[in-house]
C-alpha cells in the first residue's frame, strides 16, 4: 500500500475504530474491555483465546463482529470425537458427468472469522490441525495446501470450569494466540441491560461498518506507526522480566515462574500497541499502550511453578507484581 494511502488510512483510523465499537455496542452490553481487546487483535491480525464461563455471550460477540466487519463467520464446536478433517475439510467422492471424482469439501476453517468453541475439549490431534490455520493462514489436506481467506483470525474459547474430559492446550499452541482475554461475569447493571435487550422489541441490530479491504488498510496503517526506542525497550524489558533465569528479573518471576514469554510475546505486544495508539488518535506508541496490552499478551505464555501453586498465587497476581516491578525508564 502506498504511503499516501497509509497516511489517509491512519487519519481515518480512530474514527473508523470508534464507529466499529459503537456498532458492536448495539448488540453487546458491557464487556467493553473484551470488545476492545478483540478489536485490537483483529486489526493487528492475531488470534484470541477467550476464557469465561458459559453464557457470557462469547459466541454472540464473534457473530456481531463478523456482521460489523462484513466478514464470513463460522463456528466450530469442539468435542472429544472431533477429527481434524472435520475442521479442515476433506476430499469427498462425487459423481460427475465424466464419472466419479474426488472433490475437496472445505471445512469450517475456510472462513474469515472462525470461532473455535471449547477448544480444550478436542483431542490434541484436532487442536494441532488448527495450528497451521492460525499460524500460516493455510490448510494442507492430502498434500495440497490451500490458502485461507484474508483477513483471517481464530477466536477460540475455553471453559475454566469443566476440567474433566478436557485436553489442556499445549504451550506451543497457546503461544500462537495473540491475546488471552478473560471474559468476566456481567455486573448487575449489565445484566439488567442484557435482559432488557433480549426481550425488548425493535432492539437495534449491528450493521456493516467496514469491509475486508478497509480492515486490511487499517492493519497496514497500524504496522507503520513509529515507536520510540525507549518505549520499545520498555516492552522488551517486560518480556525479559518474565524469565526467572534472567539476572534482572523481579522477585516474583524468580520465585513463582517456571518459564517466561517467548519472542512472539514481544511481537504481539508491539503490534497491538501500534493499533491502540492509532485507535486513540495518536500516531506514536506510548508507555500506556504497552501497559494496556501487556497482561493479555503475557498471561497465557507464563507457567507457574509448584511454589506458586502452594502459595495460592495465580497468573494474574504474579503478572501484576512483575509489571509493577519494571519501571518505564
Amino acid at each position, binding site marked *: 500500500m502506498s504511503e499516501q494511502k497509509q*497516511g489517509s488510512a491512519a487519519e481515518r483510523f480512530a474514527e473508523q475504530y470508534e464507529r466499529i465499537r459503537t456498532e458492536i455496542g448495539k448488540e453487546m452490553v458491557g464487556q467493553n474491555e473484551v470488545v476492545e481487546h478483540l478489536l485490537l487483535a483483529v486489526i493487528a491480525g492475531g488470534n484470541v483465546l477467550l476464557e469465561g464461563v458459559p453464557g457470557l455471550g462469547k459466541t454472540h460477540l464473534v457473530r456481531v463482529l463478523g456482521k460489523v466487519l462484513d466478514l464470513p463467520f463460522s463456528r466450530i464446536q469442539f468435542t472429544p470425537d472431533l477429527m481434524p478433517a472435520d475442521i479442515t475439510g476433506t476430499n469427498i467422492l462425487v459423481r460427475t458427468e465424466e464419472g466419479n471424482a474426488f472433490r475437496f469439501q472445505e471445512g469450517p476453517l475456510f472462513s474469515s472469522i472462525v470461532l473455535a468453541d471449547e477448544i480444550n475439549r478436542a483431542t490434541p490431534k484436532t487442536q494441532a490441525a488448527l495450528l497451521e490455520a492460525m499460524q500460516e493462514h493455510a490448510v494442507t489436506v492430502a498434500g495440497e495446501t490451500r490458502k485461507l481467506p484474508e483477513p483471517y483470525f481464530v477466536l477460540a474459547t475455553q471453559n475454566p470450569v469443566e476440567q474433566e474430559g478436557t485436553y489442556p492446550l499445549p504451550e506451543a499452541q497457546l503461544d500462537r494466540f495473540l491475546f488471552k482475554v478473560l471474559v468476566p461475569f456481567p455486573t448487575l447493571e449489565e445484566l439488567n441491560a442484557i435482559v432488557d435487550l433480549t426481550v425488548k422489541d425493535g432492539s437495534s441490530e449491528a450493521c456493516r461498518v467496514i469491509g475486508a479491504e478497509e480492515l486490511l488498510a487499517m492493519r497496514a496503517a497500524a504496522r507503520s506507526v*513509529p515507536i520510540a*526506542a525507549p518505549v520499545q525497550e520498555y516492552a522488551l524489558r517486560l518480556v525479559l522480566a518474565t524469565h526467572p533465569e534472567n539476572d534482572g528479573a523481579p522477585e516474583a518471576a524468580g520465585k513463582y515462574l517456571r518459564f517466561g514469554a517467548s519472542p512472539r510475546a514481544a511481537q504481539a505486544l508491539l503490534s497491538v500497541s501500534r493499533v491502540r495508539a492509532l485507535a486513540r488518535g*495518536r*500516531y*506514536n506508541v506510548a*508507555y500506556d499502550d504497552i501497559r494496556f496490552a501487556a497482561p493479555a499478551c503475557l498471561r497465557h505464555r507464563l507457567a507457574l511453578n509448584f511454589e506458586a501453586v502452594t502459595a495460592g498465587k495465580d497468573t494474574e497476581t504474579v503478572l501484576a507484581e512483575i509489571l509493577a516491578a519494571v519501571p518505564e*525508564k
Partner: protein
Amino acid sequence: MKEVIKALRPVKNRVRRNRFLQGAAAGLAAGLGAAALLQAAAFFVPVPDRGLWAAAAAAAVCLLTAAGAALRPVRSRTAAEAADDCGLEERAITALEEGDGEIRRLQREDACAALRRLDVKKIRPKSARKSLLAALACGIVLTVLLLAPNAQDRKASEQKIFRQTLEQGEKEIDRAAEEDEAALPEEKKTELRKITGDLKRDLQASRDEADALIALDRAEKRLEKLREQTAGEAMGVAEGAEGRTGGEGTGQAKDSSGSGSENSGDGKASARGDGQQGAGTPRDAAAGGQMKTQNAVSALKTAVNPSAGQKAGGQSGAAAQSGQGSQSSQSGDGSPAAGAGGTGQQTGGGAGTGSTNLEEKAGGRNSGGHVMGDRDPEFRERQYETIYDPERVETALQDETTNQNRLSDDGSVQLETGPGRGETNGSVPWGEVLQDYADTEARAADRENLTVRERQWVTDYYTILAEQQD
C-alpha cells in the same frame, strides 16, 4: 525535525529554569555545608571575620552551583522527555526519532501541535526536598557554630589588628622612603628601595609579632648601615670642602657630635671641630640625622610591640645624637665613632653609639631604661653542658665548661669562656663551634620556656657574634 526542535524551545527554557532552581537548592545545601565546615575549622585556626566568610562561602557555592546547573546545555531529548511527562504520551520523543514516511510526517505534526498547546508551567522541577532538608540541617549546624563561643575569635581579631598595623606601617614606610630618596644619591636610592622592598615582603610573610620584629630589626640595621655609609660619604665630601676652605679648629669634637675625638689632631679634626660650632657646616649637614624611613620603621616597631619600640627608640635616639652609629663598641673597626665607642660602652643608654644587645641591656639597666623581654633574665653562674666536641679541636681542652655572661662591676657584660677568652686566636674553634653554640642555646631557650622576645635576644646575641667573626 526542525519544526519539532523549534517547538521544543519553550520547553528547553523551562527545563533550564528548573535546573537553576534545583541547582540553587543543592548549592544552598552545599554552601551551608561549606560554611559550617569553615566555622568548625575556625575553632582550631583563627579566622578573622568568620561570619562574613561563612556568608560569602555559602553565597558563592550556591550561586556557582545554580549557574552551573542552568548553563549546562539542555538536550532536545531531555526537553522532549520533560514535555512527555506532562501528558504528551511520548509524542515529543517519538517525533525526534529519525525516519520518513507519511505516518512519520503526521506524527511530527501531531507532536508539534501538542507542544504548542502545552503549558510549560506544568513542567515542574524535580523534588528538591532532600536538598532543602540537607540545607536546613547544615543551616542549623552553622547557626550553632556561629553562636557558640570561639576561643579563636580573640586571636583572629588580634591577627587582624596586627595585619592592619603592618599595612599602615608599610604605607608610612613607603611615604618616608619616598621623602628620603629625594636626598640620596642614585645608588643609595636603589639600596633604600631594596631594603624597603625586602622589609615589605618579610612583613607580608610574617605570621606573628616575632617575625615582624625580626624583619623590622633587620631592616633597621640595614637602614642604619645605609645611613652610616651615606653620612660617611657625605662627610668625606664635606671634609674635602672644608679642607679646601681652610680654617683652624680646636680639633676636638664636642660630645654632641659623637665624633671620634681620638682622631683629632689633624686638619680634619680641626675642621671637624670648627664645623661643630654651628649647624650650617657641610660636615654637620653631612652628618645629618636619622632617616625618616628609620623613624617610620621604629614607629612600626613600637606599634607592633611597645617594648621593642622603646628599645628601638633608645637606639635611634643614640644614633641621632651621634649622627653616626656603629655596630659594636667591640668591633674595633677604627671608625670615627668607634674611638668614642667606649663612651657608649661606658655610659650605657643613650651613650651615643650603636651598641650590642649586651651593651644595651647593660646600658638599659644602668640608666633604668627598658630592657628586652617581659622579665629580666637572671644573671647567675651556671654550669653549661659541653657544647662542642673536643675531638674537633686539635688541642685538647682541659676545661670544657664556660661561665655564663655576668655583669662586671662597671656594668659591662663580659663573656667568658673556658680556655681562651673569646679571641679568634684562642684555642676555642669559634668558626667551627659558633653555630653549634647558637643551635644548642636556641634549643635550651626553648626548653626553658622563655618568651619570644627572650629567645630573640639569644638569637640576636649569636648573630652578632657571628658577624663579629666575619
